[in-house]
């Protein structure tokens, strides 16, 4: 039997493994995050499939890895796109918080993180959706940063991004879990 869970104390350890997985995840998100497509039927809601990497790395490697992948990965996308690493710092932090929440999956879907791979994959999908809903609450900081109205942030920011990212996570995280878990076992991790 394999498990995606880790002990509560090891969750917060920062060793070479955490650093490298976090850097790999952030670089992958930075490279693949540049590709997105418009949600059919909408004019400004884009789905970024690579967001699933944030919740997958959080779910599979812990909250610190998830936090780093989301925060640094999104900042790198902004950096490559030209906005600058810190200009939309609150959106990067929201991405990071989504990764952190996915990494804390053992607190709310702990029972699904052990046992058959199908259960772990389903746990990953649930963690991805929960992480999107909770993590992106931080985009309401746009009310302070940009002077936007609550309804504006809700309709142009929070709701579209949560829908898009929850869909991407629900579909892609289980597939990544299915691909990674057997390899992890064969590598003795």
């Amino acid at each position, binding site marked *: 039997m394999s498990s995606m869970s880790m002990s509560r104390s090891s969750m917060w350890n920062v060793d070479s493994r955490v*650093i490298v997985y976090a850097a*790999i995840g952030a*670089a992958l998100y930075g*490279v693949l995050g540049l590709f997105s*497509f418009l949600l059919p039927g909408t004019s400004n809601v884009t*789905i970024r499939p690579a967001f699933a990497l944030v919740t997958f790395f959080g779910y599979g490697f812990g909250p610190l890895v998830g936090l780093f992948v989301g925060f640094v990965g999104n900042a790198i996308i902004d950096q490559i796109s*030209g906005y600058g690493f*810190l200009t939309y710092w609150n959106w990067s932090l929201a991405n990071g918080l989504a990764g952190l929440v996915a990494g804390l999956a053992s607190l709310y879907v702990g029972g699904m993180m052990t046992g058959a791979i199908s259960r772990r994959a389903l746990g990953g999908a649930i963690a991805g959706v929960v992480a999107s809903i909770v993590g992106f609450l931080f985009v309401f900081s746009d009310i302070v940063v*940009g002077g*936007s109205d609550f309804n504006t942030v809700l309709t142009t920011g929070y709701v579209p991004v949560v829908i898009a990212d929850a869909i991407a996570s629900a579909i892609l995280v289980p597939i990544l879990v299915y691909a990674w878990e057997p390899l992890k076992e064969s590598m003795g991790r």
Partner: protein
Amino acid sequence: MNIAPRYLGRGSWLARRDPRVLILVVVLFIITTIQAWDLRLVLVLLAIAGLYYRSAGIPFQSVKRNWRVALTLITIIVVVNSILTGDRVRGVADIHTYFAIPLLGTPVSAESLTYALTQWLRYVGMVTVGFPMAFCMAPTDLGTAFARLGVPEKFAFGLDLTFRFIPSLAVDYQQTIDAQRVRGFDPAGTGGVVNRLRQMIPVLTPLTVSAIAGAEDTIDAMDLRGFGTVRRTWLRALRFDRVDYLVLGGFALLFLAVTYAGIALGTGQIWVPPFMLPG
């Protein structure tokens, strides 16, 4: 699509600054701009941002598309915000309404238009100061700069490592696309949401799994060199010179002045140009 950071301002006056200056200026400018709602003050801040941007020597042709995307995004946010906010303009009790938007009924007033314009200019100012950090800073300097700014060294090292992984992952990405194309993969993608996400699987999955599996070599190398056992030093030496101190001092002074103006002169409230007031 270019998936590597572009160092377009190489050799410019701003590129010769210590990279920490570019980071700190963004932070100082954002916390300064957040406090300003007086249109006159926001225009001053935008002019300062423009001068700062010019010193980066970024060729406009190379970033034209980036500007177009940024301005479109800002405009959408401001327009939607104006429509939804209506006449609930911060700190203004006396509203001068011009007309109501047909069907929606949202009132358009001198105050709401000023608010929208000010908000738009604030965002443009922030992006203007952000661009040099994207295009005028050597990507390899970012980790060192954050480490020297007091960010935990393991985080800074992770940042440095991330930028080192990007070129090799970009190559792996292209190779994966090419390999899947041979098998009939269409990177353009068609169909509904689920279908388009499923079409990403042949690229996303092998790229992710091989990157994670390949990370083992890096982890072993770091462990063998005793990573985390002693305090790290950085090969790239950073040192502020007199001009760096002047630039940082100037932006710090600007922050203090705008904070004072907000308290003493009320520049935290919107200011409507007299010509916009009817009658």
